[in-house]
Structure formats: C-alpha cells, structure tokens
C-alpha cells in the first residue's frame, strides 16, 4: 500500500518534471498540472494514510487519529487544489495571448530580440 502510493507519486513527479522542461507553454502547463496532482497526494500522504477510517466524526466514536484520518492535510490539499487550478488557468490564458502576440506557442516566444532591448 505505502509502496504503491510512494511510487505512484514518484512517477507523477518524474513525468511532470519532464514535461515542465519542454519548450512549449502548453506542455509546461500539462507538467504543472501533473505536478499539482503529485503535490496534493504528497501533502495528503504526510498525514499518513489508511483505507478504513471514518471521514466524519460521529457519536460513540472517539474523535482520535485511531478512528479518523488526519483532517489537517486534507484541508491543506483542498486549498492547494483550488489555488493550483486558479494559477494554471491564468497561465494557460497567458499562453494563448502570448501565442497570438508573438505568433509562436513556445514559452520563450518573443524573447529572441531581448538582447537588443
């Protein structure tokens, strides 16, 4: 179980990093999205994982880590998911704009002339 999760997150990270280093913004966006999955799972895993816990507190069940999974990392992941979505959305739209401005969907569009500036 732990190994599956660990290796899964590892693979996600690896592929994400590879895509991050591509030259075109869209691939970079794919990479960043994939990386956010990895990060979210990672954050979640830091609260330790178990398959048989009750997510919701209920009467007659002591509100302890023995019965429930750690809620804090989950809350953090919720925040992280939304922030990641927002940032990715902005980046992809900027990428569209940059493609239209410079007629090139590479992440370095319009930078050839930078030395001249």
């Amino acid at each position, binding site marked *: *179980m*732990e*190994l*599956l*999760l*660990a290796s*899964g*997150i*590892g693979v*996600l*990270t*690896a*592929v994400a*990093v590879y895509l991050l*280093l591509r030259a*075109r913004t*869209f*691939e970079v966006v*794919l990479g960043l*999205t994939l990386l956010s999955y990895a990060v*979210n799972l*990672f954050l*979640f895993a830091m609260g*330790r*994982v*178990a*398959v048989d*816990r009750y*997510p*919701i*507190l*209920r009467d007659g069940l002591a*509100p302890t880590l023995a019965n*429930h*999974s*750690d*809620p*804090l990392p*989950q*809350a*953090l992941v*919720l*925040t992280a*998911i*939304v922030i990641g*979505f*927002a*940032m*990715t*959305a*902005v980046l*992809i*739209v900027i990428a*569209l704009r940059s*493609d*239209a401005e410079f007629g090139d*969907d*590479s992440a370095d569009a319009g*930078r050839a002339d*930078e030395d001249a500036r």
Partner: protein
Amino acid sequence: MEDPASPAVSLAWIVALPFIAAAILFTLPNYARNLAAGVAGAFTLLALGLLLAFTPDVFAGLVPAVAWPWLPLAGADLGFRADGLAFMFAGLVLGIGALVVLYARYYLSSADPMARFFAFFMLFMGAMLGIVLADNLILLVIFWELTSLSSFLLIGYWQHRSDARQGARMALVITGTGGLALLAGVLLIGQTVGSYKLDVVLQSATVLQSSSVYLPALLLVLAGAFTKSAQVPFHFWLPQAMAAPTPVSAYLHSATMVKAGIFLIARLHPTLAGTDPWFYIVTSVGLATLVVGAYIAVFQHDLKGLLAYSTISHLGLITLLFGLDTRLASIAAVFHILNHATFKASLFMAAGIIDHESGSRDMRALNGLWKYMPITAVLAIVASAAMAGVPLLNGFLSKEMFFAETIGLDSFGVFSVLVPVLATVAAGFSVAYSMRFIHDVFWNGEPIGLPRKPHDPPFWMLVPVGVLAGLCLFVGLFPAVAIGPLLEVAAASVIGGELPYYSLKIWHGFNLPLIMSVLALALGAAFYLSLQRLFRLHDHVHIVYGGRQIFDSILRALLNGSRAVIRWLATGRLHRSMALIVAVTITVAVAPWLTPRAANAASLTLAINVPPLLATVLWAVGLAATLGLLWLHRDRFTAVLLLGGIGLIVSITFALLSAPDLALTQLLVEIASVVLLMLALNYLPARADPLPANASRRWRDGLLAAAAGICVTVAVAVVLTGPSVSAVAPWLLANSVPGAAGTNAVNVIIVDFRALDTLGEIAVLGIAALIIVGVLQDYRPRRSSISAEKLAAAGQGFSLMLSMTSRALVPAAAVVAIWFFLRGHNLPGGGFIAGLVLALGLLLPYLARGTSWVEERQRINYEAWIGWGLFIAGLTGVVSLALGYPFLTSTYLTPEVPIIGKIPIASALFFDIGVFATVTGAVTLALTRLGRVNVGPR
C-alpha cells in the same frame, strides 16, 4: 559632546557655508554672472574669516572641536576639529579658493553657465573643508567621496566635449575605487581601535600596529590616498582631468583635491607610520611617482599637460618625504605642500591666461609671447622658478630640506644611494620642464598660427596670479617670518610630540643639499637645451603606453565580459531556469543524506502488506495513463484526456483513502480543468511539432525527472513507515464538534480553524478570474480549430441533445449545489464543492448554445459575485471584532427548524456562503470567457 554654544561651533559653519552657497547658486539663473561669482566669493571669504578667528587658539596649540551625535557607529559623530594640520589645509582650501573664484569669474566665457559652475565649485570646496576638518574617519570618508562626486561634475563641466566626459568618468572611477578601499580600511581601523574619532585613532598607533589587520588596513588606506593624489600607477587620471576648465585644474588638481590624498597620509601618519611596510611602500611609490612624473612632464607639448605631470611628480616628492618617516622629513613635506600649492596654482592660472588670450595651449605654437603679455610672463617666470627650486624662492627651501633628508638612508641597502641620486635627477627634470615652460612660451621665436593676437588679460585676472607669485617670493625670502609659526603647528600635529630643531634659512652654508641643488639646476638646463637643440623636441611626440590604456582596456574587458556572462546565463529561456531550479532543489534535498549519520538514522522498513486489489489496479491504470501522457504529450487532445484520466484516478485514490471531500473537490476541479484545457486547445496547434531540442537536452531532462521522482518516492516511503507525529490533528478532531459544531473536521478547518487560508485562497481564485477576463478582453487568436460554421453545426448538434436538458440541468445543478452546501459543515461538501457544482451546471447552456446565446438571455455579473462573495466572507470575520474577539471568530446556535429538526448553524455558514459565491462566480466567469472566444477570430 562639546557645548554647541562654544565658539568652536563656527567650525561647523566653515564647512556649512560653501554648501549653503551651492544651494543658493543652484537656484540662480545662469546669466547672473557677477551675482554668482559674488555669492561664491562672499561665502568663501566669510568662511575664511571664521577660520582665521581660530588662529590664536590653534597657534597656542589648542584643538578647538565641536560634535553632535549622528551616525550609529562608534564615534562617528557630526563633528569637526581644527588642529594645526587641519587649520593649514583649511586655510589653503579657502585662501586659494577665494583667488580661484575671482579668476574664474573672468576666465569663463559668457556661454558657460556660470551659476552652475560656482554651485559645483562650492560643493567641492565644502566637501574639501569637510575632509580636513572632520573629527572622525567616517565623516572624513563621506566628504572624501563627496569630493570625488563634485570633481566628477566639475571635470565634466563642458559636457559637450567627449574628453571632458571621459576624463570625468575616469577620475570618478579611479578615485571612487580608492574611496571604497579607503572605506574598507577605515572600517578596519575603527573596528580595531574601537572608535572612529580622530582623537582616539591618533593615540592608538600601538594597538593598531600590533594587530593583524594593520597591514590590510594600511594597504587599503594607502590605496585611497594614492588614487586620490595620482601616485604611480594610478597617476593617469590626472592628465585626463585637464579637460576641466583651468580654474578647476588650478584648484582641484594643484592645490586641493589631489592634496587630499597627501592630507590623509599626513593625517594618519601618527597612527600608521613608523613601520617597515609604511616605509617601503610609501617611499618607493613616492620615489617612482617623483621621477616618472618629472620625466614625462618634459615631453608634454600641452601647457596643462606639462603642469599636470609636474604636479604628479611633486605629489610624489611629498609622499616620498612622508615615507622617509623622519621628523624633519615630515616638516619638509608639510612645507612643500604649502609651497607647491602656491606656485602650481599660479602657474595653472598663468597657463589659463595664456590659453584664454592666445587661444592655444600648445607650446609648439606658443612662442615669443614675452612682448605680447609681459606682466603674465614675469609672474609665470617667478612661479616656475619656484617650481624649479631656484634660490630665493619658496620651492628652493623645501627642496633643500628634501635633499637633506634623502642623504644617509641605509634602509634600501646598497640601493640607498639611489634615493639622493634619483632625487637629484628628478629635480633636474623639473628644472628642465620649468625652463621649457618659460623658454618655449615666452621666447623661442614667433608665435605660429595662433587664433588671435595675444595680449595681457584684464587686471582682475592677473591679481590672483600676482598674489600667489608674490607669496612664492615672500616665503622664499623671509621663510621664518612668513611661514614659520604655521609650519610649526601643522608639522606638530603630523609628527605628534615636540618638533626637532630645524631652521628656515636660505643659507645653510656649503653642504651636500646645496651641491645637489646646483647639480640639478645645471643638469636640468643642459638636459632641456640638448633636447631642444639636438632632438628637436617639438617634433618629438612622446606617447607613453601607460595606465590610461590599461584602464580603458580593463573597462572594456569588464563590459564585454559582463555581456558574455549575461548572454550565457540569463538566456531568457524558460527551460533553462526550470532545469536549474529542479537541479538545485534535488541537490539540496539529497545533500543531507550524504552524511553517514543521516544514512544510518534513516530507516526504511516498509510493512510489505499485500495491498488491496482495487488499489493495485488503480495504481497500474494510473501508471499506464501517466506513461501514456509522457509518450503522447505532443498529441494535445489525447494528452488532455489522459490528464483528465489521471486526475480521476487521483480523486478515486482520495476516496479510497477515506477522504471524500478531497475526492469530490478533485473530481470537480478536474472537470473544470479539462474543459479549460479543451477550450484553450481551440486556439493552439493540435499537435506540438517538436522544436529542435537536441538529444543531450532530452537526456538532461530525463535524468532530472528520474532523480526528482526517486527523491519524492523515498521521502513518501520513509514518512509513511513512521506513525503520525501530528501535534495538531488530535486537538482538531477533539474540538471540531464541541468547538465549532461541525462533524466534518475537514470542512470545519477550512471555514473556522484555518479560515484565513480559505479567505486568501478564494481571493486568489477571484483575482485569477479577473486576470483571465482582462487578458482575453482584446484577444484575437491566430487560429481556431473550430470555425464559426463548424461551431454553429456543433451548436445545432448540441442543442438537440442539450437544449432541453441544459435548461433543466441548471436548476438541478443549483439544487445539488445547495444540498452539498448545507450538509458541508457536517458531511462531505461545503462552499467550494457547492460552488464548483453550480459553476459547472451554469456552464452547460454555454456549451449547448454558445456564449452569445446565453448572454442574450441571462445577464449575470459574475465579477460582482466574486467581489461580494469575498466581501461577505471577510465581513463575517469582522463581526467578531465588534464583540471583542479576534478576526474570523465563529459562533453558532442550534435553532429548531420545522421538518429538518435541530440543526446547528455556525456563523461560519455565512463565511461559507461567501466562499460559495466567489467560487461560482470565478469558475463560471473564467470558463465562459474562454468559451466566448469560440466564435473564432473577430
């Protein structure tokens, strides 16, 4: 701190007055020539008067001082003190300053902005006075750098001339560098002796010289002094600075600024001198400068060039004297400072007059001016005779003392005899160039092609020269009377302690120094005449490949080097930056594990329990999808679908690991992202044709990716082997119900325990939507894979399926949303999830009918949703402030609601409403705006 009411306060005024004058002059119009000169002169004389008022005190051996606490460094007050040396220099600065002001008034042409000139001039004068009167080293350095700045402005005064600009920048860079070195040295000294106050520093010779920082401090301070006073090998900036107007040269480059370096050596003499390093460094640099300067001077054709190199040589002489480090040598040095200031300033002014009245400074053109400008000639002859060290003039006296000191050294071993010899030779050169100055300019045939017919200048232009030349003569004839007392007090504060016996007499009887003088005169004359006759000096253009070329090439190299570095590193390529970041991160993450301690400690004992089948399948599918994405990422539609699949698996993983809220949110966000990316793909190439990325880069990226993956895997595995160490979770679980009336701990954390995070997060989401709106406002895509008609067709197709359903689905979505929302606090759900559900519901009609269709029918201002949502969420937090609780403090009540029964309503519910509104508004806005562009290029 002294009583500010004490008369010594006027010391501060002496320094302040020139700055005040400068401030006034900046406001004057440039045509107010006489007014400008008047202001400058008046303030200078006023300051001089204040200074002279201290004469009795200073001559009585007192040290008037005043200080106000200022800088937070030990002893770095805003304080001034006037001991003999400071008094002498201040007198020099102000006296010659006054004369130069008078001279400059007539020298500058009506085209030159005179007010600005005098403004800079007074700025410099104030800085110079600050240097000599400062009562601590920090203040001294401050004014030191100020002289660099103001001389930069003065040298560059004729901005339209490139030589002026270059000269100014070179002077600034060289003296600025020296200033930095000096700062470092001064800081070292202050650190070691515990204070920057001169009174302390001057008493701390033993402390400093016994400490390890003595040598670095000495080198740094000397670097400052040598650059400022143009010592070899830093001498080259001075001739370049001759591009300045002649009054500036007369003032800065003979009497004052270049003397600042000398002053520093004299000032710190008691603290730094008396060691071998001091002796060898200062003496040899001084000697080299003396000889080199004098030699080059002979071959200059430009009057000011000759004077510049002669100045360098004389500065070398003074430095050498301080280096010799005997009491008499120091006296001689102080004496020569005064003498050189007088004759060199007058010579510069004379040169300026000649330039001014004849239109040339080239000694090959200037000949036989004797009959045109006799008065100037007489004055110039007196001054240059003093420079040559002819008896009965002041230059002779100090040179005699100098010779006397060079004899009988033994520190240089067998080479010691070289010192007097070289001294004599240099003296010979100075005789030669002095003769050349006189003979070439005033005799030696007729002027050659001068722009205008030369004549003596207006009376007031001659006065300053006359005064100074007169001084040369007066001091030369009656040294004891003229200069004795001043010299005594000045020298006393350099030597510290009682003065040895010395006599200011013209005639010391036949002795070695006298013979050396005679020898020098004879040699010099012979040398000049032979050059003149045999080598036809005038055709001989003497080019020294010296510091200037080196300096220029260094600067050029620096510039090109920098450009190269920047081109190489800051390529502006994203993948470069990203790769660097990843690589560095991996490095620092791995580094801690390389120590044996860590390696032993970190235990990786995984409980190899057989994972549930579902988990294994999930893992396999996820792996396949991820690798597929890696393989097919160029085919973008496939890539997005695969990405969606992976997201789905992630959310199932959350569900499997008993985190339903995460599962729901992940799922909904997933849908939103896929829609987003799909919409974006309308305007991007469906396939990414590979850029020419070479194989080596793929390898680099592959390795980085693998390393990153391994790091993360190890980290997760190691953490998961241990039990939870959370110090927070138990409390959160225990207090969720009693503290915040919520059985869904995760939601309680979001809306209550850590509500501030959520507030910030929805702010981010909202702003993101606004950015998207802004960016898409006047966006014209290059291409759109869905053409207008295809879209219409699609629209038809959609409408068949969806037009009915979508209208119905919106309310349905709303209901589901509200349901999720209400149960959120106690069961999986809450503001986010509800918001996302509603947003996706609202999106359906857009997909079905296209944005325009929808917006004709429903006008929803989603920006307002975002704004008000944020505002409501914030406001619920503010309420608690009124009740005296911190921001975002929640409360709850449990009312009896018909049908549903008792439900606890936390105030956090209203917070969640804000979240709900913002999320709905933001997501809908973002997606629909991206959808609107659907109609293709407008």
